């Protein structure tokens, strides 16, 4: 299992390349934002409801209060991607911990934690996110928390499945017989083997986090102090007939980033799974 075949496999996968390319484009957008528009996305830049392409200084037009859509798009890239990444990171932490505990120890620990996982997953996830965001006022922190809350069960199950599989493996039994401490077994022996499916799914999770955030913002539950793509959609919704570009432009940005992340995940999946199959 050499490591240098992996990069080659990745680069030869078209999906991975396209996905990474798109994602890099998004990241460039995020970085360009503060540089091209240091005044931020909130300043009134021109006449309200200017259509894209009608004013050279405002290539993507303005919204109902005269704010530059392009500025919003670039600044929003940073926020949307950050929220997606942060929520996924938190979900991974919680999910890995829970999955490890249940997968390794089994027994009543498994029963209890799995019932808790079930309880969280039984409630329609989007509704749960709405309730949580409402309790703690809508803000980047509460949105990240809410999305993490509904995402960790999937990670936990994934890790648990891997651990249950690995627990019966010979090399683990050998370690146990040798008297290795559980913590060492978990961190050094088992977890590294569970990483590949986690990596693949985290790409998908960031994508779904971005989708959920945009859904929350669409319903009016976004953070009012930052502009994310979802916020732009939420704000533009009330003036849809006067300018559908208000919703479609950030909507397309969301779609492209979700696309990019999915392609990335697919590419990783192809590359990593080929490596693992016997």
């Amino acid at each position, binding site marked *: 299992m050499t490591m240098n075949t992996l990069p080659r496999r990745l680069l030869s996968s078209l999906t991975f390349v396209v996905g990474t390319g798109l994602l890099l484009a998004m990241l460039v957008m995020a970085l360009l934002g503060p540089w091209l528009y240091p005044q931020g996305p909130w300043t009134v830049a021109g006449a309200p*409801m200017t259509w894209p392409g009608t004013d050279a200084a405002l290539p993507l037009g303005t919204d*109902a*209060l005269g704010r530059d859509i392009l500025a919003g798009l670039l600044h929003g890239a940073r926020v949307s991607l950050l929220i997606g990444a942060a929520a996924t990171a938190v979900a991974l932490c919680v999910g890995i911990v829970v999955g490890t505990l249940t997968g390794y120890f089994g027994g009543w620990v498994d029963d209890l934690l799995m019932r808790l996982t079930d309880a969280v997953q039984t409630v329609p996830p989007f509704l749960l996110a709405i309730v949580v965001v409402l309790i703690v006022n809508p803000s980047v922190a509460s949105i990240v928390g809410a999305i993490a809350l509904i995402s960790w069960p999937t990670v936990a199950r994934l890790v648990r499945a891997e651990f249950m599989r690995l627990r019966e493996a010979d090399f683990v039994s050998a370690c146990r017989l040798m008297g290795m401490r559980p913590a060492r077994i978990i961190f050094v022996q088992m977890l590294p083997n569970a990483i590949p499916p986690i990596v693949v799914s985290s790409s998908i999770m960031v994508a779904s986090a971005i989708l959920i955030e945009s859904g929350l913002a669409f319903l009016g539950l976004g*953070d009012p*102090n930052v502009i994310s793509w979802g916020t732009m959609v939420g704000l533009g919704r009330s003036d849809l*007939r*006067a300018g559908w570009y208000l919703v479609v432009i950030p909507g397309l940005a969301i779609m492209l980033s979700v696309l990019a992340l999915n392609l990335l995940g697919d590419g990783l999946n192809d590359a990593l799974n080929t490596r693992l199959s016997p």
Partner: protein
Amino acid sequence: MIPLLKSLAALVALSASFATVAQAPVRGGTLTVALPTEPAHLNSAIDTTQQVKIVAGKIYSGLLKYDLKMNMQPDLAESWSVAPDGRTITFKLRKGVKWHDGRDFSSADVAFSIMKGFGPNNGLVRTTFANVESVQTPDAHTAVLVMRQPAAALMNALPVATATILPAHIYDNTDIRRNPANTRPVGTGPFMFSEWRRGDAIVLVRNPNYFEAGKPYLDRMVFKVIPDTQARGAAVESGAVDMVFHSTVAASDARRLAGLKNLELTTDGYHFDSTVSFAEFNMQHPIVGKREVRQALAHAIDRKFVLDNVWMGFGKVATSPVHYGLRQAHTDSVPQYAYDLKRAEQLLDEAGFKRGANGMRFKLTIDFVPFGDQYPKVAQYVRQQFVQIGIDADVRSSDFATWVRRIWTGRDWALNLSALTNASDPSIGIQRAYSSKNIVPGTPFTNGTHFRNADLDNYFEQASVNSDPAIRKRHFAAIQRILATELPVIPLVAIDQFTISSKRVRNHATLSDGVYGGFADVWMAPN
């Protein structure tokens, strides 16, 4: 010869214009109205939300109607007289009126409604009607209100959706909030309740025994629940509904829709709403509690911009919380605060809040009422303006329950963007917000700023009992001057609500309560 021809021509022209003006109402048809929210029930005596009032107003009747100049007209009351000292008001009631279930209407229903119906239960006019000590019913068609003290605003507070006359034989001795008639109402109005498809629509049909003979003209009214703003706009554009009311399409859409061949827009018929939006302050806050700070902030908001871009020009820049439509009370001669960022910064410096090392003077959180699309936009605009003059402002978004709790109970707020309906008189709509006697923690839409001014309280009290319009106008002018000087509130826009309807719908805005009235005179022209 020629003079004859001329007069003939004139006659022809005259009769032609008469033909277009005095078209005869056509009987029949269904009028469909878009409802933004499904009402919880249909009893407007205990609920003042728009969606309840618009349906209940067709099923029930009030004592009076008011034309667009607020001249009183008979509804259930045929004639009325107010004693010179204002302590008794006599209503002579119409004879032969029947409830939708066939029972006879009588003064007992009026007495019940005032003393146990809307009187104690309508949050908006409760204080006004608390002045009624009792209602005498010497006969079945006479009701005499005996007042503890005169209530100048009362005679203008009697349209159906505000002072709803309920059937005593159904509601007396029951829990008014749990009575099943709240969802299957029995009224005396031009339309009868027919069907309620939850989440979808409410259907009313003509009352064949309505007391105005030959009316209503419409066969049926359908109230379709369409929660999405865009969907409502599309519905009225395509003819799926005939009417959207109370500005419930996006303002940016409204102008475009009004320009279409088959639609028209009117701002008539919202006298009883007369809402003014504002930014109000928590007078107990350490920073905005200082008058100079409030004055500075007033200079930082361009109200014309807000009017033009958030309300799309539907209204006027407000100089006081009293709506300009309330001609008996409104005045412009009050201290004004022009849009002047330099002056704002100067005032803040003088108040001792200089810019710090990071360019900021102090932090400020902006709250706003989570109702409608406008207030988040105003909040963002205000925040941006404040940042320009060195205030580290941020916007806080809450849902309705959280917002209510915070402003009136929790009190951890500094600036609140909201709006208040004036109703038809400042004594009803405004007094509750600024009189120090109405500081009631835990109850929304009382005096949330905790503004206290003894003179203001005094003027309000006198205005509420004095029937002389000239004296009242003077008192209200004084009140507005105090409010503009002490500035517990920065008025923003006096809103003109609008109705967009198909041109086929006639006579829907001929009364002051507009869409919230009975619609007995409304008819639909054929295609």
